[in-house]
């Protein structure tokens, strides 16, 4: 799994690629924790290059969202497609997360 972060005017864009599972999710957790503890509150996660997400990965996303909510922050998901999209739907993520078609749309919604 590869994780890249980029600071935009109003949010941090987190790009994940490969797989988010029990092996790779701890790395995701670490990167996010560091940013959140550093005071960042607004995130857009770009799922375009993510091929697969397991229960551990989903859990990681839920944990991050709860953390952010506690600090009055927010996160939006962009480019969720394919099997990842199916899994999101089965898990009910659609009713609790903001999911956008693109990073641009997500950033616009954060203004």
């Amino acid at each position, binding site marked *: 799994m590869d994780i890249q972060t980029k600071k935009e005017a109003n949010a941090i864009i987190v790009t994940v690629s490969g797989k988010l*599972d*029990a*092996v790779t*999710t701890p790395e995701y957790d670490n990167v996010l924790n560091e940013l959140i503890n550093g005071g960042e509150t607004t995130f857009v996660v770009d799922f375009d290059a993510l091929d697969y997400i*397991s*229960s*551990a990965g*989903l*859990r990681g996303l*839920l944990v991050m*969202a*709860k953390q952010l909510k506690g600090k009055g922050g927010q996160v939006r998901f962009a480019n969720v497609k394919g099997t990842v999209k199916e899994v999101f739907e*089965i*898990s*009910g*993520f659609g*009713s*609790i997360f903001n999911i956008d078609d693109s990073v641009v749309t997500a950033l616009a919604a954060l203004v």
Partner: protein
Amino acid sequence: MISKHDYTIFTQMITIMNEVSMGDTTNVGMLYELTKEGAYPPEIVNLAESFGMMLVNIDAKQQHLELLLEDLKEKNSALELVTGNLMNANVGMLEVLGNAIAKRDSDTSDHNYRVTTHSIYLGKALGLSKTDLCSLIKGAFLHDIGKIAISDAILLKPGKLTAPEFDVIKTHVNHGSDIIRSYPWLADAADVVLHHHEKYNGNGYPSGLKGDHIPLHARIFAIIDVFDALTSKRPYKEPIPFDTALQIMADDAGSHFDPEIFEVFRKGARELHEVISGFKEPELVKILHSLMHDYFETVNNNGQVRDDS
């Protein structure tokens, strides 16, 4: 064939599942550890993955419920504000309407304020519920609203009315009833508006109702209305002294008035009259507002209870 090692992991997983089923999620991390493909036998990985998905599912549902609850609370607060504002508007309009009618046949609305105030005290003394008191208040304030439909020639005639002219005046109760029945919030004032000229012995109008067939609020109000007419100044007469007025009315207890209600009225009348009869309109308005405050929970735009000081 399960190896001894596999069996240990399996029992570990069962322990964690039992803990979670009792609400203890401390060791859930270990469960997700077991989903690592290749690190553990596939049967265990698959089972752990299924269980992990189940937990994610439940967590997501929980969060959704929390979101819905927050939304509901917000909507509820907004609704309470709207209801408060609506009540404000209704009560405000009640006064506007009553005062508008008063302008037709008298220059002041003192009468409306006095009779409404007296009605509240008599109603309370009779043990009326809050809902009933609200109806009584509305009816008292708007009792003569039907007069708007009566022509000036008759309504403002200085001399005595002929029989046909009196018949026209009598229709004010029907007109009044028509007017208020069209608005749900006012509809419960109909008892007073329509029947405040009925007499206990059945000789009143419009329907010649007798005794307990006359709605309670109308029986209450009839006493107050006549009392105020007798004891206040009118263009054609001076006020009658309190004791004389009470005697005149006592003679009619049983014929015009409900005798039981009259007794209760008689007990509290002197004190109340002494206080109220001296007041001019501004004070009467204040008194009524503060009384109505108890029955109509009026709130201002910030959701705070209306303060008329």
